[in-house]
């Protein structure tokens, strides 16, 4: 409960979270805020799912900004292993030191009467090369050892291997890691953990069980307008509701990649740069490639642009 009591007026209530996130530019739905609230109170990681560009990673970034904690990010990929994620021994440094120490080894051992005592003397120096100075902490260890707590973002966990997922379990449930040469490192202040997933593969039940689950759907008209307003303040209200309505109607189509929030925001930025005041078919056709990422999708939408624009924008 440290998180909630000590440093987190921002996490005191769901309303406070919504407000706080809005302050750092993230318009959160109630469910998102509740997930954050629960994560702080139950001290569990949040697994965030949703289509690409819906604001999963952004949520972690904004949470870090809100809590004023460092964000430590671990990007997952196939073949990611412990040495990249947790810690590594600085092999080069170890080697360099052995080379330097080699010359001092002879004088130190020269007065040893026999081999056994020379060995004993060497053992006395202990695990010199497997100690703190030779340890290279990777994101997970960094997050656990962060003195004032941290926000840990494990991005695209579904891209990593099964084995890595299993390896995460200890960290996620107990906020500790075991390093054989040093011992168990336990977090003083458990980091707030976000895992994001695009559903490339289904995650294991064990992992899911340890996490709170948050699914971020594509937003409705009202929410999306607020998001655009927060992200692109320069845009005029009329254009904003028009463009959001257009994107919303695109989402009803059977496209290969539906435009998500990030595309809407990009498009809004592009239109602002073009000094557009309202949408017209020509402008839309020219900038459609910002919104749609596949040739087939653009080809499918282009002839129907007029039709989508003709729909009256819903009352704001």
């Amino acid at each position, binding site marked *: 409960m440290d998180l909630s009591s000590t440093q987190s007026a921002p996490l005191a209530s*769901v309303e406070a979270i919504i407000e706080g996130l809005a302050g750092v530019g993230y318009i959160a739905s*109630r*469910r998102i805020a*509740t*997930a954050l*609230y*629960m994560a702080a*109170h*139950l001290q*569990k990681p*949040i*697994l965030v*799912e949703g289509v690409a560009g819906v604001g999963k990673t952004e949520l972690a970034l904004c949470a870090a900004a809100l809590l004023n904690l460092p964000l430590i990010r671990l990007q997952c990929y*196939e*073949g990611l*292993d412990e040495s990249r994620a947790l810690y590594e021994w600085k*092999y*080069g440094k170890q*080697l360099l030191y052995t*080379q330097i120490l080699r010359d001092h080894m002879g004088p130190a051992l020269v007065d040893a009467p026999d081999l056994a005592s020379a060995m004993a003397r060497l053992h006395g120096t202990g695990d010199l090369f497997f100690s703190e100075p030779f340890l290279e902490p990777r994101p997970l260890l960094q997050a656990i050892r962060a003195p004032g707590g941290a926000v840990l973002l494990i991005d695209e966990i579904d891209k990593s*291997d*099964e*084995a890595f997922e299993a390896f995460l379990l200890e960290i996620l449930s107990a906020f500790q890691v075991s390093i054989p040469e040093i011992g168990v490192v336990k977090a003083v202040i458990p980091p707030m953990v976000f895992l994001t997933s695009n559903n490339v*593969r*289904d995650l294991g*039940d064990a992992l*899911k*069980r340890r996490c*709170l*689950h*948050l*699914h971020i*759907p594509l937003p409705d008209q009202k929410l999306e307008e607020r998001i655009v307003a927060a992200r692109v303040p320069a845009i005029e209200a009329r254009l904003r509701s028009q463009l959001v309505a257009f994107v919303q109607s695109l989402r009803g189509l059977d496209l290969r990649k539906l435009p998500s929030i990030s595309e809407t925001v990009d498009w809004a930025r592009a239109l602002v740069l073009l000094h557009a005041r309202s949408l017209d078919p020509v402008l839309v056709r020219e900038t459609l490639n910002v919104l749609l990422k596949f040739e087939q999708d653009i080809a499918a939408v282009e002839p129907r642009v007029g039709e989508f624009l003709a729909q009256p924008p819903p009352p704001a």
Partner: protein
Amino acid sequence: MHRTLEDFVRALRANEVQVSPAEAIDAHRAVAAVGFAERTLLKDALAVTLAKNAEEVTRFDACFETFFTRSSLARGSTGQASAGDADLETMILSGDQAALAEAIEAAAGRAGAGEIQLPTQRGPIARRVLDEMGLRALESRIQALREVGSRAEAERLAEGRAALFRDAQTFVERQASLYAGQTGRRLREEILGRQALSSIGEEDIAAMHALVRRMAKRLAQRYARRRHRARVGKLDVRHTVRRSLASDGVPFNLAWKSKTIEKPQIVVVCDVSRSVAAAAQFLLLLLYSLKEVVERLDAFAFSDRLVGVNDLLDDETVEVAIALILARIGYRPTDYGRALEDLFDHHGPRLDRRTTVIILGDGRSNYADPRLDLMRRLSEQTRSVIWLNPEPQTYWGQGDSKMDTYARFCRVAKTCATLVELERIIDEVLRTHLPR
């Protein structure tokens, strides 16, 4: 309120939201943190702790709405002291709806409405709930009033009784949708899974498709797990020593051994002829699901001639693809010899030691030349030949079946007549007979 939460968890489980005991404990902790006072907060808090994927979230929301209707919350807030004690007649006459609702719930608890298993139990349980509430007493009272002649009061009671019937029924409906909504479907699916593929009727085909798709997904997951071999490197001493020459023999740059994974090649040949007509649908379904599971798979279908169906399976949805394939070459007399010839003609050069051939068919060749020579060549040339036959083994070799002879050239020849068997065998095949 713990009881309510337990019931809710049970309802969730019945609605296919998996809740483990540990998650149930989390739910209790969540409720302890947010309380029951605010409905949306409670809903969101429970949703993030209990629902673990997008579909479960949808089911959770629906279940929550049904479960926490006004009445069950009312019970929590008012306490149960007033309910149950009051007489049914007084409640009806005073028009105390809240008390009636509470009485229904209390009676339902005694009648075991929460333990409802099947939708068909709704009627009897509603009746039992009414009995528990003292319906008999009410009825005799109405009777007595009518005999005495106070018509007006009797009518009011009778009206109240009718309303009570409706209320009890709705209540039990709700319980059924909470606790038994899915059992009927699940039961049906279980039966379908065990039914012979060739005897599945038109009306069940949609359900079968859903089943097969789920099976394909399960297989894909299991199999994908195995395909990723851990690539934990071993030190490549030769390379390391060689690199170390640059730093005076001190191995600063390490080289690691890496393992290249040999991708399996699978060729699936599916019989869609008249003799397997009924099962052909599902063999094709299986082909389709295999195609999703295994990345590099060449699919063929044949009756008298053999055609490649890769493109069809890639581009179309499963229903369309199956219909198209059946329209193009389905339901004609089989000729296994011809099909084998075609296979070698189209695909000959690619049938090598790395290829696994899976044949789905009944081995009935209409007394045409079975071309055992080609079958022998196939088994010698490829890694293994696996034959899955919808007919039981006792039929092999009967009539025009050449299965017993073909079986000699197969690494595995098995019967698979039902979906459950199919899944087991495919799983086994993927696990043991494919190169990894």
